[in-house]
């Protein structure tokens, strides 16, 4: 498995955080996800064969947030 940090813009409260964690945890290839509101960041552990950082960003974007791979 691999780990990626994704910058997430648009979260304002813990319900946004919960929301993203709950939904993303069910996406294909996601092993674990932790979202930090104060850092505007999601840390995702994933199976590189089943998904990719780009795909994960797209899925978060789909939920109505801006997401990009953190450098």
């Amino acid at each position, binding site marked *: 498995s691999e780990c990626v940090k994704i910058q997430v813009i*648009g979260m*304002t409260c813990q319900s*946004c955080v919960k*929301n*993203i964690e709950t939904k993303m945890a069910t996406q294909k290839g996601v092993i674990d996800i932790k979202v930090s509101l104060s850092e505007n960041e999601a840390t995702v552990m994933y199976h590189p064969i089943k998904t990719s950082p780009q795909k994960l960003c797209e899925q978060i974007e*789909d*939920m*109505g947030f801006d997401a990009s791979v953190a450098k």
Partner: protein
Amino acid sequence: MAQVHEFKMEMTCEGCAGAAQRVLGKLEGVEKVETSVEKQQVLVTSALPKDTLLETLQKTGKTCSYVGTQ
């Protein structure tokens, strides 16, 4: 013809409202989106079928339901 569709959506803050605005804003055929956290309400002006709009809103992960046209 575009109609104003009313949806009920569980929103706890402006962040939730912003998410609703963004998912609907990406959809072609949506003219206007108005959100009210206070009323737990999303008003969408669009000629698209209500099911398309509801499915899009549900992508936010929030609980939402269709109320009707205004």
